[in-house]
C-alpha cells in the first residue's frame, strides 16, 4: 500500500481515535498488516501499543541503565528480575505502579496493584515472601488526600494480608504535588530454588495454552490505554469508571499455590501472568518471546458475564488469571492440580509454528474452527510498537531553581516546633499490614533503615543469610535537579541497605513522571535515567527491572519527577539481631560523613517555609561506596558473631528531614534523650546532604579512628542521655512530647484520636 493510500484510509476511518491511537500509529498498523485491521486486531494494537505496555516514550532512554553483573540471572524485559543468592537459591524482584486506578478507587486500585505485582513474581517460579509499598499522597491537611490514604492503606492490607504475603516496608510521602494524583508503587520479592526458574515463553508446536484462575469479565477494558496512558483532566474520575477492577486475594492465593505446584512438578513449559492488556498481552508476549505463533479460541475463554464480544474478552483486565503453556500429555495432571486448588483451568489456545519467513502469527478464532477474527505477527504487537524520541527541553529557570541562597537565608523563631512538625511515624500504616508472616522479619517496618529478612521461605533450603531491602524516593530533590536528585536517591537506598550489614546486589525502579508530551517532563526522565545509571555504575548495583508510569498529571499540572528505587542486598550470616536505630544511655553519638549547612531542597525549607528551591549537595559516589562498605562491615561484625563486639549500639542514616529528624527518631526509638553540643547552626540540623550516618557507640575513639583510617569523616556530636532532646541553643523537647508528636501524627490528622 502506498503512503497516500494509507493516509486516505486513515482520514476516512476514525476507529482508532477513541482507542487512544494516533493517526501515524494507525498508519503503522496498516503498514504491518498490509490491510486495514479488523476490530479485534485494532483493539489489540491499541492496548499493546499503549504507553503503559510498550514504553514507547521511555524505551530509548532506559537502554542507558547498567543491567549486568555475574549474579544477575534475569535482567529487565522479563516479568521480574532474578538474582543468584548462592546455595541454589534465587531471588526475584520487581516494582510497579498502580497510580491512576488508586485515584479512581483507592481500595481496589491499591489492592489490584498488589495482586498484579505478586503475579509478576510467581510467574518466574518464585514464591512471593515480601511486599513494600512506597506511597505518595497530598498533605494530611487535605480531606481528599486523607480519604485516599485511608483507602489505599486498607487496600494494600486487605489484599496482602489475606493473600498471605507480608508487607515488610515501604515509604510515605506527603506533598501537594500528589494532591490530585496519588502514587501507589508496589514492590514484591520472591524466593525460589534456582532450578524452578521459568520464563514467560511459548514453545513447542502443538503445545496447549491453559488459562488459569478467574473468569473474564468486563473489568478494566482499555485500562492501559485509556487510564494509565493519559492524564486526568479536571473532574474526570467518573468518566473512567468502567476501568475499575475488583481484586480477589483468595483466588490469587490459590493461584499462587497451584502455579508453584505445577512448576515443582515440571508440568509447565512456560507461564505468564495476565496484567495490563489481558489476554492480548499474555498471548502475544509469550508467542513473541518463543518465536512461535498461537491460535486462540476466544469462545473457549470462560466468562463472568453474558454477551461479551471478542474485543472485550481479548482486552479485559480481569484480575487473578495466568496463562500456562503445557505439553498435551501433561494436561490431565495439570487439571488435577488445579482441581485440588479449586482453580478453573481451560485450554484456550495451541502453539503454532512460524510461517515461511520465520514470523509467528497470533490468530484469534471464534470457536475452534470458527472464523478468524485476527491474524497478526505476534512480535508486531509485543515488540514493535513505535518508539518515540520525544522532544526534551531543559526548563528555562534552572539556575534560579537551583540557587541555594533563599533556602539558606531562612530562619525560624522556634526550631523545636519546626522539628516536631516534621515528625511522622508511619506505624499507623504498617500496623494494618501483616509484616511478620513466614517468621523471617528480623527488622520490620520502623525497626531500622532497611527491612531485613531471613533468606528463607517455604520450599527453599535454610541458610543463615539475610536479605535486606529499602525503597526510597525524594521528589523534592529531583524537582530541582533530577539527575543529582536521583543519584542521591540511589545512594541513600544503598546506604540504608548497608546499614543492616548487607551488600547491595540489585535495584529495581519505578519512574513516576508527568505527561511525556511535555518536553520538560521528557528532559526530567532522561536526566533521571542518567543519574540512576551513574549512581548504579559507581556503586556496582545492576538494575534488574523497572516500570515507567507517565501521564501523572492533574488539571494540566505534572507531578514532580518521582523516581522510586528499591535496593536489595545480602548479608552472609545473621546469628544475632544487628544494631538498629536505638541507642543506650551514655553512648557517644558519632556523625559519619561530611558536615553540611546546606538546606537547599530540604523538607524543612519546603514544609516549614514553603521554599521549594535550592540544590541538595552533590554525592561523591566513590566516597559513598567506601562509606557503604564501612557501615556494612561494622554491622556485619555485630550480626554475624555469637558474641557481638559491641562497638555499634545503634545506627541510622541521615535522609529526609536531616540530622534533626534522625536524632529525634533515635531518641524516640530508645526512650533515651540526647545532648548535642556540636551542632549550633539550624541549617546543619536540617540539611539533607546524603552519604551520612549517625552511629551510637560506647567506644567513640575506636570508631572514629576506624572511620578516619578509611578516609571517612567522623566527629562526635553529643551523647545519649536523659529524657529530653537538646541541640545547643536550637532545640529542647521533652521525650514524652517528642514521642507523642511522632507517633500520633497520622491518627490525629485522621481524627482517630482527638487533637489537642
Amino acid at each position, binding site marked *: 500500500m502506498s503512503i497516500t493510500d494509507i493516509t486516505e484510509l486513515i482520514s476516512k476511518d476514525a476507529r482508532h481515535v477513541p482507542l487512544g491511537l494516533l493517526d501515524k500509529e494507525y498508519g503503522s498498523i496498516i503498514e504491518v498488516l498490509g490491510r486495514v485491521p479488523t476490530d479485534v486486531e485494532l483493539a489489540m494494537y491499541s492496548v499493546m501499543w499503549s504507553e503503559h505496555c510498550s514504553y514507547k516514550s521511555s524505551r530509548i532512554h532506559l537502554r542507558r541503565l547498567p543491567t549486568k553483573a555475574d549474579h544477575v540471572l534475569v535482567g529487565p524485559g522479563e516479568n521480574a528480575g532474578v538474582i543468584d543468592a548462592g546455595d541454589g537459591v534465587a531471588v526475584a524482584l520487581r516494582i510497579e505502579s498502580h497510580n491512576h486506578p488508586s485515584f*479512581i*478507587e483507592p481500595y*481496589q486500585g491499591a489492592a489490584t496493584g498488589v495482586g498484579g505485582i505478586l503475579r509478576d513474581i510467581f510467574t518466574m517460579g518464585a514464591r512471593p515472601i515480601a511486599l513494600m509499598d512506597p506511597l505518595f499522597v497530598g498533605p494530611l491537611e487535605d480531606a481528599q488526600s486523607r480519604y485516599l490514604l485511608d483507602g489505599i492503606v486498607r487496600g494494600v492490607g486487605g489484599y496482602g494480608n489475606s493473600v498471605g504475603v507480608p508487607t515488610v516496608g515501604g515509604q510515605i510521602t506527603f506533598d501537594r504535588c500528589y494532591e490530585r494524583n496519588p502514587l501507589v508503587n508496589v514492590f514484591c520479592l520472591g524466593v525460589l530454588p534456582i532450578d524452578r526458574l521459568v520464563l514467560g515463553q511459548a514453545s513447542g508446536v502443538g503445545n496447549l495454552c491453559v488459562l488459569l484462575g*478467574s473468569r473474564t*469479565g*468486563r*473489568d478494566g477494558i482499555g485500562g492501559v490505554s485509556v487510564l494509565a496512558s493519559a492524564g486526568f483532566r479536571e473532574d474526570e*474520575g*467518573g468518566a473512567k*469508571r468502567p476501568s*475499575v*477492577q*475488583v*481484586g*480477589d486475594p*483468595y*483466588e490469587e492465593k490459590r493461584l499462587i499455590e497451584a502455579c508453584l505446584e505445577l512448576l515443582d512438578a515440571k508440568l509447565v513449559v512456560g507461564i505468564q501472568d495476565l496484567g495490563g492488556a489481558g489476554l492480548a498481552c499474555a498471548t502475544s508476549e509469550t508467542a513473541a518471546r518463543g518465536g512461535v505463533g498461537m491460535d486462540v479460541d476466544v469462545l473457549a475463554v470462560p466468562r*463472568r*458475564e453474558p454477551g461479551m464480544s471478542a474485543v472485550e474478552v481479548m482486552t479485559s483486565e*480481569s*484480575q487473578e488469571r495466568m496463562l500456562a503453556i503445557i505439553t498435551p500429555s501433561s494436561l490431565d495432571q495439570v487439571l488435577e492440580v488445579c482441581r485440588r486448588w*479449586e482453580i478453573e483451568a481451560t485450554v484456550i489456545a495451541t502453539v503454532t509454528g512460524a510461517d515461511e519467513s520465520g514470523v509467528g502469527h497470533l490468530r484469534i478464532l471464534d470457536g475452534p474452527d470458527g472464523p478468524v477474527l485476527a491474524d497478526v505477527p505476534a512480535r508486531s504487537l509485543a515488540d514493535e510498537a513505535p518508539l518515540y524520541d520525544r522532544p526534551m527541553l531543559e526548563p528555562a529557570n534552572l539556575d534560579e531553581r537551583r540557587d541555594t541562597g533563599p533556602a539558606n537565608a531562612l530562619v525560624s523563631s522556634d526550631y523545636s516546633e519546626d522539628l516536631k512538625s516534621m515528625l511522622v511515624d508511619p506505624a499507623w500504616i504498617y500496623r494494618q499490614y501483616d509484616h511478620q508472616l513466614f517468621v523471617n522479619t528480623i527488622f520490620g517496618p520502623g525497626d531500622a533503615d532497611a527491612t531485613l529478612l531471613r533468606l528463607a521461605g517455604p520450599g527453599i533450603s535454610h541458610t543463615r543469610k539475610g536479605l535486606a531491602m529499602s525503597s526510597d524516593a525524594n521528589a523534592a530533590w529531583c524537582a530541582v535537579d533530577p539527575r543529582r536528585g536521583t543519584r542521591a536517591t540511589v545512594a541513600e537506598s544503598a546506604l540504608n541497605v548497608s546499614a543492616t550489614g548487607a551488600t547491595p546486589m540489585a535495584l529495581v525502579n519505578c519512574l513516576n513522571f508527568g505527561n511525556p508530551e511535555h518536553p520538560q517532563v521528557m528532559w526530567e526522565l532522561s536526566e533521571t535515567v542518567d543519574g540512576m545509571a551513574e549512581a548504579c555504575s559507581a556503586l556496582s548495583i545492576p538494575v534488574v527491572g523497572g516500570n515507567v508510569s507517565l501521564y501523572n498529571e492533574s488539571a494540566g499540572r505534572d507531578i514532580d519527577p518521582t523516581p522510586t528505587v528499591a535496593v536489595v542486598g545480602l548479608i552472609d550470616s545473621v546469628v544475632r539481631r544487628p544494631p538498629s536505630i536505638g541507642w543506650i544511655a551514655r553512648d557517644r553519638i558519632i556523625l559519619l560523613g561530611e558536615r553540611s549547612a546546606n538546606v537547599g531542597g530540604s523538607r524543612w525549607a519546603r514544609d516549614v517555609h514553603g521554599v521549594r528551591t535550592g540544590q541538595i549537595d552533590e554525592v561523591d559516589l566513590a566516597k559513598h561506596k567506601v562509606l557503604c562498605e564501612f557501615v556494612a562491615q561494622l554491622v556485619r561484625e555485630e550480626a554475624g558473631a555469637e558474641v557481638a563486639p559491641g562497638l555499634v549500639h545503634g545506627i541510622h542514616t541521615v535522609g529526609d528531614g536531616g540530622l534533626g529528624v534522625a536524632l529525634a527518631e533515635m531518641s524516640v526509638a530508645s526512650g533515651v534523650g540526647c545532648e548535642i553540643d556540636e551542632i549550633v547552626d539550624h541549617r546543619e540540623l536540617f540539611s539533607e546532604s546524603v552519604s551520612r550516618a549517625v552511629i551510637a557507640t560506647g567506644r567513640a575513639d575506636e570508631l572514629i579512628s576506624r572511620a578516619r583510617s578509611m578516609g571517612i569523616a567522623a566527629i562526635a556530636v553529643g551523647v545519649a542521655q536523659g529524657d529530653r532532646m537538646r541541640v545547643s541553643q536550637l532545640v529542647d523537647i521533652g521525650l514524652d512530647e517528642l514521642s507523642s508528636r511522632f507517633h500520633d501524627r497520622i491518627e490525629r490528622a485522621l481524627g482517630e484520636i482527638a487533637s489537642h
Partner: protein
Amino acid sequence: MNFDVSVLVRGVEGIADPEGRTIERALGVLGFPGASAVRVGKIINFSLAADDLASARSEVVEMCDRLLANPVIERYDITINTAPAS
C-alpha cells in the same frame, strides 16, 4: 420528626463480587446446588431526626454520596419510613 432509614448498598452490575462467588461455591459444596447468582450487599439502618420526609430524603442522599456508598463501584437504594411515635 423521626424517620427510620434503611440504605441498601450493592456493587454495580458487572463488577466482580468475590464474596458472592465464594458463598455460591460453598453453598454448592454444602448440598445447595440450586443457588446461583449470589451477590452480597450491605444494609445500613438508622434513625434520623428531620423536619419532614423530603428533607430527610435529601439528607440521606447526601450521606450516601459522601460516605455510605462509593459511586465508582456501588449503587444504593434508600427506604425511609416515619418512625412510630414512641
